[in-house]
Structures are given as C-alpha cells and as structure tokens.
C-alpha cells in the first residue's frame, strides 16, 4: 500500500511541494498564541480598568469589559489628579520628561558617535585602554556612583537643575552608545576611511560627510535605546532633576502613592498607560529597529 503511494508521488511530484499542516506546527502556534495572550493580559486589564468608574471596579470583575465606558479617569490622570498638595495631573511630568529626554538623547548620541568614530578609525595611542575603561563604566552599578555624583553636582552648582539631569543621562548613556557606534564603525571597510584621507578630508570632514551618512541605521537604534531608557528612568529623575523638573515616571509614582480616601485605580491605570505611551509608541513604530537595538545592546541587556 505505502509502496503504491510512494510510487504515485514519485511520478506526480512536480512544481512546488504542497504545504502540509503538521502536528508540530499546530503545537508551535498554540504555544505562541498562549504566550502572547499571557503577556497581553496585564495590558488588557489596565485598559479596561482605566475605562470603568470606581463603582464598577469595586465589584472586582477585573477581566470584564466596562458596562459603561467612561473617559473621566483619563482626563483626571492627565490634568487633575493630585500629587501631594498640587492637583495638576501628570501633564507637567510629561513636559518635564520631554525637556529632559530630547536634549539628553541628542547630546549623548553626538558625543558617542564622535567617540566611536575616533576609537575605530583614528587609532590613537591608548585607544584600547580608553575603550576598555569606558566599557568598564557600563558594568558599574548606578547605586554606587549616585552619592559621589550628588556631591559633584552640588559642587559645580548643577544639582537639582535641568542641565544637571541632562548631564547625568548623557554620562550614563556613554558606555553603551560608544560601544554601539564603535562596533558599527569597525564593521565599515577601513579602505573607505583611507580613500577619504587620500581625497584630503580631515577628522571632521570624514565624520560628517562620509561616516555619519552611513551611520543612519545605527543612529536610529541609538535614538530608540536612549529615548526608551531615559523616558523610563525613575532613579536619576528622582535624585537629580529637582522639584521643578520631576519626570513623568516620578510624577506617576506620586499620583499612585497619594491617596485621599479610596484608591482611584482607574486614574492610576490611566496615568500609567499615559506614561508608558511614549516608549510603547517607539516600540510599535520601530519594531524592526528596536530588535536590532536589543541585539546590539545585548552586552548590557
């Protein structure tokens, strides 16, 4: 019997091989769908909770779709939720976070790109030692350097100021970003650099006209890493930003921690989603690049 089938196939086989659904494949899909649901569930709970009023939340059916849709919690979270004595919502934090993130990202990327360029093309004496030192910095726990850094910032008069927190983010982004750029530039052919030197381009001309135009992909990765990293930062914001520049994450914590009477779960959920919206948007818009960024930054995780 099987011999007959095999022979039929032997003569019939032509063109593309027919696709068959095997048990293993079904298993793989089941597992993947299950895993996706598992990770999506908390987000679902957050979204539905943020759309319910407090009375409905008290019933405790956290998985239920809201009986009556309300956007009040979102508005409250944005503009009127209380943090301590002020009741302005999370809005000031959002703008503070932008004021911190945008300059920090730009500054750290420019410096890191120049670092990586100098380290991979202009092999100065001690370049490897310098690079090693910089990479070592990536493995020093933040907590260890916070206190000395506070003292330093106080002494130069930048503690609890916007430039202060920007400098801190720039410094702490430096090891991983330099590594990123150096490794990327090292993969570019050295002959390109030699050709530019024969053509008479100097340090800056090669950087701006030859190297940076080729560094667009890695720069996108760097922007993603830095935007998500700095936006999600809580510790540095809390310590270095100062009362007037509290980033959104700190503001969120204050909102969640401030309770007057009952805990407003729906407002807390809305505020959390609003805070996470920027990194989430970055993930969704640039998924492909983000995976690359994770792969490139795998050393640090």
């Amino acid at each position, binding site marked *: 019997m099987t011999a007959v089938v095999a022979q039929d196939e032997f003569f019939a086989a032509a063109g593309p091989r027919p696709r068959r659904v095997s048990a293993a494949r079904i298993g793989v899909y089941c597992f993947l769908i299950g895993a996706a649901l598992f990770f999506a569930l908390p987000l679902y709970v957050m979204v539905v909770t943020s759309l319910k009023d407090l009375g409905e939340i008290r019933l405790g059916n956290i998985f239920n779709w809201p009986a009556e849709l309300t956007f009040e919690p979102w508005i409250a979270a944005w503009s009127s939720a209380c943090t301590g004595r002020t009741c302005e919502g999370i809005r000031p934090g959002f703008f503070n976070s932008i004021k911190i993130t945008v300059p920090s990202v730009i500054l750290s990327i420019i410096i890191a790109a120049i670092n990586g360029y100098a380290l991979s093309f202009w092999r100065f004496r001690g370049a490897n030692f310098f690079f090693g030192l910089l990479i070592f910095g990536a493995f020093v726990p933040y907590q260890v350097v916070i206190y000395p850094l506070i003292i330093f910032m106080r002494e130069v008069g930048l503690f609890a100021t916007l430039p202060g927190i920007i400098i801190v983010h720039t410094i702490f982004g430096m090891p991983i970003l330099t590594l990123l750029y150096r490794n990327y530039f090292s993969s570019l052919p050295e*002959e390109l650099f*030699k050709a*530019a030197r024969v053509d008479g381009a100097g340090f800056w001309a090669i950087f701006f006209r*030859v190297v940076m*135009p*080729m560094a667009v992909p890695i720069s996108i990765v760097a922007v993603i890493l830095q935007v998500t990293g700095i936006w999600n930062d809580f510790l540095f914001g809390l310590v270095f930003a100062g009362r007037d520049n509290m980033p959104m994450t700190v503001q969120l914590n204050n909102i969640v921690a401030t309770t007057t009477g009952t805990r407003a779960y729906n407002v807390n959920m809305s505020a959390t989603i609003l805070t996470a919206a920027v990194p989430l948007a970055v993930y969704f818009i640039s998924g492909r690049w983000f995976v690359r960024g994770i792969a490139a930054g795998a050393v640090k995780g």
Partner: protein
Amino acid sequence: MAQVKINKLGVSFGALQVLSDLDIEIEGGEFVVLLGPSGCGKSTLLNAIAGLLDVSDGQIWIDGRNVTWEEPKDRGIGMVFQSYALYPRMTVEGNLSFGLKMARVPKAEIARRINAAAELLHIDKLMKRRPSELSGGQRQRVAIGRALVRDVRVYLFDEPLSNLDAALRTELRVELKRLHQELSNSTMIYVTHDQVEALTLADRIAVMHGGIIQQFDKPRNIYHRPGNLFVAGFVGSPKMNFLDGRIEERSGERAFVSDEVTQPLNGYAFAGNVRSGTPAKLGIRPEHVRIDPDQGMYDADVELVEPMGAETVVWCNAVGHTISLRLEGDVALEGQKRLRISFPGERLNLFDAASGVRL
C-alpha cells in the same frame, strides 16, 4: 614625470617589523607591479607610499620632494582600493568630486575634470547613480575615476581587480594598460598577488617576500631569468620543476649531477664563477621540458593529463620527481604511457642550494 624613491624604509606594527631597510627607485612614467604572496609587505609598502601608514624609518620621495611627513592629500597621489571604497551615500558624481571639493577646486574646473575622467572610463551615463546601483566593474571604474580626477602624477593601485570575476578582470586589465599608455607621463604602482596581472601590466615587477624585494626587473627577466629560488617558484603556473643535486666539472665540461640525473650544462649562461661540487637546485619550466623520442635522456611515466584548451599539462613521474610538462592544446597522448624527455641546457635555471641565489 614623477619619480618615486624609497630610501631605507622601515615600517613596524608594534613589535612586528614588516618592512626594514627597503630601497626601491621607480622611474617617472613607469608601471611598476609589487607582486608577492599575502603577508609579504606589498600592501604595507603601498600604504606607506600613500601616507596612510606611519613609517618608523627611512624616507619617501615623490617627484623630487621628500614627502615622508606629508599628509596623503599633499603627496600628489591618487589611490584605488580592492574594495572600491566608494562613498555609499554619494552619487557617482559626488564620489568623483568629493576630493576636489575638499581641495576647494573651482566648480567649473571640477566639472571639467569629472567629465574628462568619465569619458575616459565610459562612466558618463552613470553619474547620478549610487554605488549600490552599479555592477562590480562599474564600481571599480568609478574608483579609478576618483583617482584620475585628482590630476596627479602617481597612481597607486591596491589589488584593484581582485574582487571582480575572471572575465571582467581581463577586460579591466586591458583597460588599465591602455589608460597607462594614454596618461603616458603618470607613474603607476600596482599591488597584486596575481602573476598574470603582474606580467601583463608591468614595465617592471618587484617580487616581494618576507618584507624584502627579491627581484626588481622586467617581466621577461622575472619569468625567464628568476634571480633566486623564491622568484622561480612563485612566478609561473604550473610551478617550475626543481631537482636537487650539485654542480660538477668533468673534463672541462660542467654538469648538474644527482642520484638520478647527469645533466650537461652546455648552453647555460652562468651568472658567475661556480666551484665544482657546489650543492645546487636545477629548475626547468613545464613548457621547456622537451619530448624527444629519439634523443631524450630520461624516461617519464605519464600519471595525469590536464587538457586546458589552449594548452595541455602533463604530470609525469621522472627522475625520482613529479615533473610537469606544458604542451600544445591539441596534442594527442592517448595510449602513451612512457615518454622520453630532455632538458635543453639554455632553458635551465640553476640556484645555489644554500643561499637560493641564481648561479
């Protein structure tokens, strides 16, 4: 006419001394090929001439100027690289004009030079394209064009054809030779490990090995009168056949003697005086081994026949060695298991067994 003169050049990477005490003098308008196996220092020498490497010793003179401490752009050189090294984010036009813009050449002059180079290299229709939209041959043409527009006297080529397929390589090789004839007053220094390129292109070839120039001579002499064992073994494919033995003088006639052969040396032009009993190596190129059914001196058992179209290479077992013969393309050897061969004296190469120097 730009002469290139290297005096006692030394280059080292850390503790590794790649070149030391190297002298070479290249005439203006000459096409010189630096030939050697990988790691012989030929690319290092070229990069040192270009100014892309710091030298640890010696001087480099180009066109009567000591350029040892000058930047690459001030040396009056143009360079073409193996990987083309075109700026990927610029169009062909951008690539060609980049160096001129850096040197602040007036716009009209840039346009004139680009057009001249594009026409010479047949790339005038590609000016608006990016390098990624070009084929390998077109890319290398653009790379050559980028060197040409610099309007210099010395052009350096670092294995420019090695990344191309065989047919394109032959085509561009011919074009390079034509280019050198058209730009008759420009000096070209060309690095390659491909001996066919070296033999066809060069006015003179410098064969390098271990950081030392083994022989600097016309292609004809490199091939037919190799100066030492390394050159003899490196140039030519299949390799020259070698036998070990010694030179002996018998009744006024000198001969090469080993356990298997006694080869008379009449017709061989000795480079100097050779004492009887000197240990020596005898070399003969595959195409110089003669099949001689009547007066052949040695028996050769045919092991393998490689028909290559234009020629046939026959591998035989003779005089205790594997000997290769290069014959006509349509030679008929079917059924011939044993040949009689001889080594014509005027075609032999003799080297001192100890020093490797030609005798």
